[in-house]
């Protein structure tokens, strides 16, 4: 398809402000929605949150008042977009059911990006990470059944499997080993930049969500599990943000952000099954096109470079939410026992890893293991959704 956002004009910025009535969107129905509609909402919220926070950081590093004012204008619209997108989530959903949807996003978004990523080093980074999100989904699914007597299947609806990934207790690495090597901004495929930005934003939003909602639970095991997985999200943000070339200028980064938003709204518009939600993706795409043009102007003015020099000439194939079961199973079969050492990956537990493990676990079972014990005591079994047969790794099959 040939959609070049640089050649399209959107809605002029001074006509983008929405009133309360327009912001007051109808939420999706948690019991009957397309699970991937909910995934798109959660993913897009993460993208908008990143857009807002990035713009704030840029403003804090900007001296010229008129540039600060322009950033503020666009950012206010981005903040409205975030409100509209995230308010599509229904008030009747519990934090835990939204959490399971967050993990479904992490699994299917990261797996899809890993499949499509052209750069082998970046691909490896996504393959490594997705096996951890996959295990988080499994732990939260067991907690969900304990607290609400609901099955994660009512959320993921068989599109994503629920079973052990790389065991969560092994995700706690020395922070130094979470820093990867970045892509080179002048050599990497433009698609790789979009992938890195997308996954970084999604994981960052997950980190923010767990760090803020975790303590709203009263059940000790729930509080502790959110604390544990929340700390792994910190590791994941470190992992993914270090993929982005820090040599990109602020303005170049701004352009990449706006371009990525166009890419994702366009992608989601193309595949959305819910007409009301689709209308939002379309409207927001038309807003983002204008944000992109404004960002391009800033880059030309401040960097003296053409944005075309850092962007793809047309949008890549749409980013798609779809089942990745076979792909995830392949990874489970081949990469379960990996950990990181420096900027690379190894199969053996090394000294720095062992030291971190010893210190953080303090000789006790972590919450992610205890949730399974407590679930077992309550139901006499685990909770899993294995639509494609037994776990590929015999040691991870239910006893």
């Amino acid at each position, binding site marked *: 398809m040939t959609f070049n956002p640089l050649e399209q004009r959107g809605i002029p910025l001074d006509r983008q402000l929405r009133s309360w009535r327009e912001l007051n969107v109808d939420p999706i129905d948690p*019991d009957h929605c397309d699970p991937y509609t909910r995934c798109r909402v959660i993913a897009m919220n993460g993208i908008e949150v990143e857009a807002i926070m990035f713009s704030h950081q840029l403003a804090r590093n900007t001296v010229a008042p008129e540039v600060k004012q322009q950033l503020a204008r666009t950012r206010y619209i981005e903040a409205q977009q975030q409100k509209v997108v995230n308010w599509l989530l229904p008030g009747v959903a519990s934090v835990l059911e939204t959490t399971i949807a967050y993990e479904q996003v992490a699994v299917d978004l990261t797996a899809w990006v890993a499949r499509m990523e052209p750069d082998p080093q970046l691909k490896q980074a996504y393959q490594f990470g997705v096996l951890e999100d996959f295990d988080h989904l499994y732990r939260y699914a067991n907690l969900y059944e304990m607290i*609400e*007597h609901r099955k994660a299947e009512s959320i993921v609806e068989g599109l994503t499997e629920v079973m052990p990934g790389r065991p969560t207790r092994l995700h706690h690495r020395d922070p130094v080993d979470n820093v990867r090597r970045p892509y080179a901004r002048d050599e990497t495929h433009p698609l790789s930049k979009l992938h890195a930005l997308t996954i970084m934003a999604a994981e960052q939003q997950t980190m923010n969500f767990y760090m803020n909602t975790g303590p709203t639970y009263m059940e000790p095991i729930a509080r502790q599990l959110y604390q544990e997985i929340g700390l792994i999200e910190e590791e994941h943000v470190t992992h993914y943000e270090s993929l982005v070339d820090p040599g990109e200028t602020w303005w170049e980064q701004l352009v990449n952000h706006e371009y990525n938003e166009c890419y994702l709204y366009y992608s989601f518009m193309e595949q959305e099954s819910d007409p009301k939600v689709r209308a939002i993706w379309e409207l927001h795409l038309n807003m983002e096109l204008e944000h992109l043009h404004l960002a391009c102007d800033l880059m030309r003015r401040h960097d003296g470079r053409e944005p075309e020099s850092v962007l793809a000439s047309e949008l890549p194939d749409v980013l798609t939410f779809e089942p990745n079961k076979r792909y995830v199973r392949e990874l489970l079969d081949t990469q379960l026992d990996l950990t990181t050492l420096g900027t690379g990956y190894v199969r053996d537990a090394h000294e720095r890893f062992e030291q971190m493990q010893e210190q953080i676990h303090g000789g006790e079972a972590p919450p992610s293991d205890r949730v399974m014990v407590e679930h077992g005591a309550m139901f006499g079994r685990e909770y899993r959704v294995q639509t494609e047969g037994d776990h590929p790794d015999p040691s991870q099959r239910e006893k």
Partner: protein
Amino acid sequence: MSELTTPHAGDDHAADTDVVSLLMRQHGDIRNLFDEVEAADGEERRDAFRRLVRLLAVHETAEEEVVHPFARRGLTGGRQVVEERLAEEKAAKETLAELDDYDTDDPKFIPQLLKLRKDVQEHARAEERYEFTHIRRSTDSANLAAMAKAVKAAEAMAPTRPHPGVESGTANMAIGPLAALMDRTKDAVRKAMDTG
């Protein structure tokens, strides 16, 4: 699709020493039954719907007898919170009564069921957020346990899952004697509260 069945609250191996956890799991059980009714048809739907109605009746009666009175007496602003919950329950019961007029295969049944489901789900979350949190905060573990015991007594009185040998009796029970079921539940709860 997995074959796993989640047992109803009271039938799992939870300690059930906290009325709030117990009722929250029961909210999930009710939501599961709505799923079941929607997914089934014919005799299976009829059966699932009867189980749903029984569980709703027992659950709401137990709440009205155990937790609402406590909230009304024990919480600051409790009277207002409970009035709002009772209004929601009344609305849900009216929808339920209308639903009773249809056969489960009637084309009007599912739209009406979805309306009930929405009311019930909103009511359940409102209880969890505006009533249950305050109950946990304002009482001790002994009282939470005593209230849990009373709720369980209500269930024992009116089993909501067919027990061996009584399936046909359950299946044949129309929604008609619902009021009688609620009365029996009330008696059971009151007895448990007195002896607890």
